[in-house]
């Protein structure tokens, strides 16, 4: 495993319902990431299709493996890159059950997927109308380290990140489609989730305007002590190269020993009260 890896935060806008154009953009940014010696390039939530697609999601969703993931796998093989991106995933066992999924591929092909666990269905969001939630956290032991995946609204639930961290992730990648009115929440929570878990957190948000909804960008890499190591522009497409130095985790864990101080018995109580309140 590498001690240091280079990330490319590919903060793109997606053309809604246009997978061809979005795949083209993913390819362009991946090649750019390769040229800048990045190991892993990360794209936003549902970057394959755009976020506000409503009923069209049924036409756009694909099974994994499917045409789009195959194309990204080929791209990863061709460039030797690791790639994370978001797409609507059609369950292979049913006709119209869809997940909001983060896909992780590498030079040797498909590494894994994460199905968003918390689906916002309030305010302007209507994800539960379209998606089935995932039931598993995801962390993958790779040549780039143990990397966990989360999506957007999951960040409001510390238990998702905690579990991902406890399963071994030292870098947690959170892909997102967060609108501008919620920027301040994410700026706080990205730092909090990294700090409380003493893990690196790479947050990659969508930009652009979809159906009047403005996505704010502001993608970032946060250190295990909550510092912002790199940050993309607000509101416009950007591409940021940054470095994860895993040797910083040990001193962070000793200085802020939250993992040592975990109290498992509280989780039992939490479970009991979460069921009853």
């Amino acid at each position: 495993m590498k001690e240091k890896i280079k990330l490319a935060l590919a903060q793109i806008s997606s053309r809604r319902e246009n997978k061809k154009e979005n795949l083209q953009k993913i390819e362009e940014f991946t090649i750019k990431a390769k040229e800048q010696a990045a190991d892993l390039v990360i794209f936003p939530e549902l970057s394959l299709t755009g976020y506000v697609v409503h009923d069209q999601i049924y036409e756009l969703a694909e099974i994994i493996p499917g045409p789009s993931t195959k194309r990204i796998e080929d791209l990863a093989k061709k460039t030797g890159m690791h790639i994370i991106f978001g797409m609507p995933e059609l369950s292979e066992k049913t006709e119209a059950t869809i997940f909001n999924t983060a896909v992780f591929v590498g030079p040797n092909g498909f590494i894994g997927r994460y199905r968003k666990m918390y689906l916002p269905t309030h305010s302007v969001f209507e994800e539960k109308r379209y998606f089935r939630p995932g039931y598993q956290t995801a962390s993958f032991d790779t040549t780039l380290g143990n990397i966990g995946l989360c999506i957007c609204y999951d960040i409001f639930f510390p238990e998702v990140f905690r579990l991902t961290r406890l399963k071994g992730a030292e870098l947690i990648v959170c892909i997102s489609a967060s609108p501008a009115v919620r920027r301040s929440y994410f700026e706080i929570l990205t730092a909090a989730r990294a700090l409380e878990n003493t893990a690196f957190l790479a947050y990659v948000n969508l930009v652009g305007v979809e159906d009047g909804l403005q996505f704010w960008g502001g993608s970032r890499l946060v250190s295990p002590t909550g510092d912002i190591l790199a940050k993309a522009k607000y509101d416009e497409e950007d591409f940021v190269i940054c470095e994860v130095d895993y040797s910083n985790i040990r001193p962070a864990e000793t200085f802020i020993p939250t993992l040592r101080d975990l109290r498992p018995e509280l989780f039992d109580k939490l479970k009991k009260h979460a069921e009853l309140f």
Partner: protein
Amino acid sequence: MKLTPTVLELDLPEVEKRIRRFIKEYVEKAGADGIVLGLSGGIDSGTVAALSSLAIGGGRVIGLMLPEKETYNSKDIDDAKCVAEKFGLKTQICDITPVLESFYKTIPIFDQADKLCKGNIKARTRMIYLYYYANKLNRIVCGSSDKSETMMGYFTKWGDVAADLSPIMDLYKTQVRKLAEHLGIPPELASKSSTPALWPNQLAETELGIKYETLDLILYGLERFMTTEEIAQQLSVEKALIEKVKSRWLATEHKRRMPLAAKIEYRTVGADFRLPRHTY
């Protein structure tokens, strides 16, 4: 939550930036050559004219002044021209009086004394002019409705509210005034009394029976699910006033929606037919 005027304060540079981006992106994606908007000389249309010009350049914005003889006010024309000059947008004046008179003459049941029905003809006629320009010149119609009027249903259905995009519809009137001043619209215009100009001497606050400073705080409370009791207590006003505002807001929802369709089939327009709104 404490209902004081501070809750309505905005990060004005950020709001300006977001609305400019919203307008620019819409026009670009629509492949439109520009914007057409009604320029009444009031604060809402002046603010939208300013934002539109800042977003895409005044050379691509036409402000239509659509006066008619009953409500003609040279001060409004001067105020509209003042905004147009400051933000570099083009203007045209079309006197809609002959068209209105044709309606009055040709509608068999026309009632001169019913000023509301008559006034609504004016608002809908203005809409027709705006959409003619938009069609003919490949432009989009930018609306000037604010959140206070929209929530109160204080507009003409398919009239002044008709537009392709509504950049300030999520801002209360008192917020629009502050945004206007931030944009450099003269303070005397920013604080000018609002009128829909449907009949002579019509004033919005008189008709609504409440000052915008109070109305906006009531609507802000309702928006955030506060009870009428809580709002009345916090603002030290009669609960009956809050209930009046609330019932007017709820009763006018039909004006803010597509026409109600009878649910017969699998997916229904305006109900469960949910499609992305493409502007291109």
